[in-house]
């Protein structure tokens, strides 16, 4: 494959990762969010495989497969089951002022481009231009955790942040060592189980997954 074509494919996938990040930022429905998260994982996984091919680093294939199985199938499945068990699948979250959130997202993209442009100029990798997109994905995940009130949504925002970090690692240094990536994958998996348990606890205590309710958390006098 021509290196130019690879670079173009890479930037295409980066654009789609960014698009799904924005989609998650404004999506109201729970299942829609989970599906968008799965799509983002798929784009990441394809991108990792392509980078692995062009850089000749075979361990990236393994991390691509890991991303595919974990972030496209397993985590969305766990979230699906959780949403069903907690009976929140019909809940439509109130998102305040969607256009404003979008504008903030755009501002974050511009900020990360500004922040990353000196790094990009120093780098010689094919994937250097996607670094800004990776940082923007992390930032948008953070913005999502700040603007949303629902516990499940906040966790998805957290996972989207992790996606962005993974993407940054791939585009900045052609991926982390395999041991680190395996460790991170395992961490994510365990985190998924832990937040599942937490959801149930929050749900039984407050009868809702709205984290605003936790402001009422006081000792009885």
């Amino acid at each position: 494959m021509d290196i130019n074509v690879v670079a173009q494919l890479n930037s295409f996938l980066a654009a789609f990762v960014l698009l799904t990040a924005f989609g998650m930022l404004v999506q109201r429905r729970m299942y829609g969010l989970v599906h968008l998260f799965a799509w983002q994982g798929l784009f990441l996984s394809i991108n990792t495989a392509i980078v692995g091919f062009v850089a000749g680093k075979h361990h990236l294939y393994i991390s691509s497969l890991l991303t595919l199985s974990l972030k496209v199938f397993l985590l969305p499945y766990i979230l699906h089951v959780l949403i069903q068990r907690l009976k929140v699948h019909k809940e439509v979250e109130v998102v305040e002022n969607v256009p404003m959130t979008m504008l903030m997202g755009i501002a974050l993209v511009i900020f990360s481009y500004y922040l990353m442009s000196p790094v990009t100029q120093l780098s010689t990798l094919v994937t250097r231009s996607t670094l800004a997109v990776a940082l923007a994905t992390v930032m948008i995940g953070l913005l999502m955790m700040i603007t949303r009130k629902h516990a499940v949504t906040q966790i998805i925002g957290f996972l989207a942040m992790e996606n962005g970090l993974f993407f940054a690692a791939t585009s900045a240094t052609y991926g982390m060592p395999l041991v680190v990536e395996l460790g991170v994958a395992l961490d994510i998996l365990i985190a998924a189980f832990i937040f599942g348990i937490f959801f149930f606890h929050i749900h039984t205590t407050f009868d809702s997954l709205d984290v605003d309710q936790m402001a009422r958390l006081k000792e009885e006098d």
Partner: protein
Amino acid sequence: MKLYRFIIEILQIAILLGVAPAFTGWVRMLKCWSQGRTSAGIFQPYRDLLKLFSKDVLLADNASWIFRFTPYLVFGTAVLAGAIIPMLSLELPIASTADVIVLVALFAIARFFTALAGMDIGTAFGGMGSSREMTIASLAEPAMLMAIFTVSLASKSTSLSQMVHVIYSGQTVLRPSIVFALLAFVLIALAETGRIPVDNPATHLELTMIHEAMILEYSGRHLALIEWAGMMKLFLFVMLGVAAFAPWGIAESGDIVAISAAFIFMVLKLVIVGIVLVMIETGLAKMRIFRLTEFLGSAFLLATLGMLSYFILE
């Protein structure tokens, strides 16, 4: 054999006037089929126009010159816009004097006068329609310019003919910015031409109508001109999208064989776009008007992302 540039220009305007109702008829026919109804045929819009032209104009007592002048102005701007967008050939004499920004301004003038005419008689529906139309316009126009600018960034020119030249020279393959701009353009075109998630083109006397509410007081040849201009606007947005995103087939010179081929390509593209449009329209429900800010906001977001990804990724 080469055709004179002015003949091409006249030919193009004739095609615009002639084919636009057929395209609207095609869309309506597909829509009927998709809903399991019997359609009135692809030529029904021509019959409607003929009928309206033969009827008398009924004017309200307090109608001012704006009300009488608007149909001609709307029709005239649509024809002028048709002379700017390359449909058959890139060698258009008027196109070299006017670029995309002029095009957007032409549509804006037509919209401005339609809104004024809607308020002119003083009925409640007209004012409501004008207010809604201007709300949509204020959100759609920046997004539209943004989407077009994204394409013109790649070709370093706002002239449509120049953009098509650059796409032909093959420098713009697989660009994420173009994909974003295309998505944004589709959303804006749906809003600007009053198609389903934004406005229902088939509705009359309904509280949700937008464009129809403004032209409710028109009758006779005035209504015919406005309806015809509306059909041309839909046709022109398709042509604008084709010229900016998929121009393959448009002739580069005035060669008569190339122009005939361009015409066939144009018809083919119209058929395809009609099918896609009907698929969008039958798949979606009309949106609440207060959700429109989100719809057009996401169009703006996509256009801005396209522009940013031009700088970041390319």
